[in-house]
């Protein structure tokens, strides 16, 4: 018998489980996985941070569900009640809001770093595509969650967003009708967005996260070209378990504290209750991740040739996004192959333009 009783119980439990589920195989598998160390290694943590923030969203989201009422008559009042009366309600909602924003930022940094490290190349095409789908899902989470407090900004943001959908040729009107649950944004829309936000999207996200993680475990980390080009004795690496995982956990701890600080010093606002018969308020702007599209929609002329300006704009932006999703099939160089410089140039230019337009969207009146 071991001196430490708890260890003994732990070991016995482990043995009991191992006998039934062969945990030793899994531990051996985890022990064999390692992470290449390069000067870009810091960026490996952003995937894990995104996952952690997703957990934060699930927990705070479930807590908010205890008080939130999804109806046009009561949604605003229930969020006001959460903010003003429920103990720490302001904190939970503010963390939910900040965590959503940081999660999208962290997912974007993850995507950009995976691009520059060329980790999307064969055989990781589907991992990349599932990642892109998850970023799209996060934006859908953001868009649907934005309406739920039923305030003025949310109401018009949803009207614009669904009207943009209506500009898609052929099926757009039908899609907007289904999204809104009628001709206009109304209480029905709120119910639909609520269902989407708390049931449909989390379900799809769970499946995609599972696929993404299993793919990474199955294929191992991508080895950057500059790391592979080194002589084998100079290729530094770190065991994933426990070294990398412990660093992950430490960083999650730091992120949670940062999140709490943001929520305390910059709590979420509620604004005015939505009134379908009031004008759109001056200075109305979307969340930062939609600012670039917003600014482009503002710049576009009413018509381009025979087409509506916004339809052409949305088409071009959609093609750009499609190119990002299909990147592994556009750059067919296998892992460790040479870098295509033109791809770096095009992507960097697109990224710089995206950042500049986002900043302009924020500062221009």
């Amino acid at each position: 018998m071991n001196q430490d009783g708890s260890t003994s119980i732990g070991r016995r439990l482990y043995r009991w489980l191992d006998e039934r589920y062969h945990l030793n195989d899994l531990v051996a598998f985890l022990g064999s996985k390692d992470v290449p160390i390069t000067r870009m290694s810091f960026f490996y943590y952003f995937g894990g941070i995104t996952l952690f923030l997703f957990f934060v969203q699930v927990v705070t989201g479930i807590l908010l569900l205890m008080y939130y009422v999804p109806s046009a008559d009561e949604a605003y009042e229930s969020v006001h009640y959460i903010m003003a009366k429920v103990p720490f309600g302001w904190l939970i909602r503010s963390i939910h809001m900040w965590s959503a924003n940081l999660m999208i930022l962290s997912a974007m940094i993850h995507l950009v770093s995976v691009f520059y490290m060329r980790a999307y190349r064969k055989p990781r095409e589907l991992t990349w595509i599932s990642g892109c789908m998850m970023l799209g899902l996060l934006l859908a989470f953001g868009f649907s969650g934005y309406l739920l407090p039923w305030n003025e900004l949310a109401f018009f943001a949803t009207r614009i967003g669904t009207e943009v959908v209506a500009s898609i040729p052929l099926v757009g009107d039908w899609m907007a009708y289904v999204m809104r649950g009628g001709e206009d944004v109304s209480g029905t829309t709120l119910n639909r967005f609520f269902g989407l936000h708390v049931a449909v999207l989390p379900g799809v996200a769970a499946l995609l996260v599972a696929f993404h993680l299993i793919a990474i475990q199955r294929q191992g980390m991508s080895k950057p070209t500059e790391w592979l080009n080194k002589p084998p004795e100079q290729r530094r690496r770190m065991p994933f378990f426990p070294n990398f995982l412990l660093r992950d956990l430490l960083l999650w701890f730091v992120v949670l504290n940062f999140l709490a600080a943001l929520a305390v010093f910059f709590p979420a606002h509620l604004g005015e209750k939505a009134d379908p018969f009031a004008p759109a308020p001056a200075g109305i702007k979307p969340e930062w991740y939609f600012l670039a599209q917003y600014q482009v929609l503002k710049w576009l002329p009413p018509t381009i040739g025979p087409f509506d300006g916004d339809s052409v704009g949305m088409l071009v932006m959609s093609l750009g996004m499609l190119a990002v999703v299909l990147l592994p099939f556009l750059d067919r160089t296998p892992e460790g192959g040479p870098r295509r410089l033109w791809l770096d140039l095009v992507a960097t230019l697109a990224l710089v333009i995206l950042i500049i337009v986002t900043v302009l969207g924020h500062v221009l009146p």
Partner: protein
Amino acid sequence: MCPERNCPNCPGEENRAESPSKRRLLNVLLGGSVLAWLGSVLYPMAAFLLPPPSPAMRERSVMVGTVNEFANNSGTLFRLGTRPGILVRTDRGEFRAFIAICTHLDCTVQFKEDESVIWCACHNGKFNLQGMNISGPPPRPLDPLEVSVRGDEVHVSLPA
């Protein structure tokens, strides 16, 4: 009966076991039933997502107020059925009214006194007091409404 398929020693067995046309027919029948079954599952779900048309009262006319409630060079939002309308009084005292929904992306417009224009705050679209789109992204003029002054009451109605 011989347990082997296509047994060379058993004449006629191959016909029983593997008849390509029979197999194709069975596949078509089976595939068809699966499709029909899927349709009968998915159709009610898709139809459920489309809300029935609401029996909203299609108000055709509304009394917005009395003449002296509206100053020159001002605009007022009002409700016409399920949609917002805007009643504008020009600096010469004339009344004009439009559906107050921006033709760009559906925001509700407002009157901007300093420029005497109808303005959409969402993407900075502007319309003149005839409802024409004059700047920004709106692709079409605002939908006009008819104004009639009866006594000192201002009535607005959908065009006939």
